[in-house]
């Protein structure tokens, strides 16, 4: 599977570039094309659980809708107030409508690009590749990996704290205010136990000879190969095609530098 075999750092780099380039575009056609092609690319080049994929995409639809109507309402005074579009008997300036649509679709296409990264990248590989390609300090990288391991433990820890509170006679609450004060009561013990765990882990790692030295060797080597540059070229080509199509249809609108 092409997308899964790419170098994680290069994949992240490529996606960040495309997202930055997208931020320069203020028309709906370019991000729409990019949104669809990203999903197609995901379909062709990745092995994905589609149900899970669309479940992740769903909240972004809601977010895009919020982006759409708020931009429509809070938009700047348009240059051509004469041209309007009617939605549900309300009149909106055509220009504001197009910008609102553009920002909403931009949310979706950025979401699709991000999911492409998340669904095809192994977390540990990403961090190991950051050490090897970006010269990230192993001290920080392994510190992060150790911290990341605490994540599943936190759920158990929360359960332990909750049960410890209940056994001492603190009852479960159902009101929102009660829930809030409950979380306030959980926060400090949860953080304290995380800090203790982190401390113990650090001492264990150092006692087993971890120095954080850069001259270490790796079981898994990551390199940047032709495939990674090919991915960058594919993504830039998709972007260029999207911009050109939008331009030919007369929709293209770039960020004009106004503040």
């Amino acid at each position, binding site marked *: 599977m092409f997308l899964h075999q790419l170098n994680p750092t290069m994949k992240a780099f490529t996606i960040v570039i495309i997202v930055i380039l997208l931020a320069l575009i203020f028309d709906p056609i370019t991000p729409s094309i990019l949104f669809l092609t990203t999903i197609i690319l995901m379909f062709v080049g990745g092995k994905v659980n589609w149900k899970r994929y669309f479940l992740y995409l769903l909240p972004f639809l809601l977010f895009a809708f919020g982006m759409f109507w708020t931009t429509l309402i809070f938009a700047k005074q348009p240059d051509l107030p004469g041209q309007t579009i009617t939605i549900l008997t309300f009149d909106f300036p055509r220009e504001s409508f197009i910008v609102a649509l553009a920002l909403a679709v931009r949310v979706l296409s950025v979401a699709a690009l991000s999911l492409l990264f998340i669904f095809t990248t192994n977390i540990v590989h990403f961090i190991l590749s950051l050490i090897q390609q970006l010269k990230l300090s192993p001290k920080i990288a392994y510190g992060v990996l150790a911290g990341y391991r605490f994540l599943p433990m936190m759920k158990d820890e929360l359960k332990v704290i909750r049960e410890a509170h209940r056994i001492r006679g603190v009852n479960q609450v159902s009101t929102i205010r009660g829930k809030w004060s409950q979380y306030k009561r959980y926060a400090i013990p949860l953080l304290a136990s995380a800090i203790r765990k*982190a401390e113990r882990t650090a001492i264990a790692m150092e006692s087993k000879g971890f120095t954080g030295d850069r001259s270490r060797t790796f079981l898994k080597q990551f390199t940047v190969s032709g495939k990674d540059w090919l991915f960058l070229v594919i993504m830039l080509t998709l972007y260029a095609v999207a911009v050109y199509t939008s331009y030919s249809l007369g929709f293209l609108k770039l960020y004009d530098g106004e503040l």
Partner: protein
Amino acid sequence: MTNWRFKEIVVLSALSVVFAVVYLAFLPVGKLLFGILGPIGYDLIFGIWFIVSIIAAYIIRKPGAAFLSETIAATIEVLIGNAVGPMLIISGMIQGAGAEAVFAATRWKNYSIWVLMLAGVGSSITSFIYGYFMGGFAALDTGYVIAMFVVRVISGALIAGLLGKAISDGLAKTGVLSSYALGKEVRKGKVA
């Protein structure tokens, strides 16, 4: 990074992991407020997303703590998955840099409540500039954008600065921080 103990780095990442989860939990809250109030809804609670830089810097008190913790928290958010993707790491770095700049201005010496609140404001400013370009705020009405900025600054000072200090002080009282700068200060009796 040479004067950092490895222990401090792991504790910093553990804090970042906890707050990455908190950050993710607040995303739907932000989305809800956004849906009701428009983009300004996010700004109301934006301070929560800077809180780890304030807490980490206040506890560990070493150059880079604010920047690093926010960056790691953003990275963990990306790794957990339900987030904005690798771009988020960059916004985390920008937020962390805002708080770090304030601590740097005091030469990482002063951690009074005003400095902590100012650090929250620092993150508000840098994140707003970034959001202005990436979020397309240029398309919005100028008065509305100014209101968003003011709300975000207040949120940064109150939620990140004040709440961050309250959480750290609460933690210090439990004694787990005894080998870090904040815990040592508490033991000396400087902070009630």
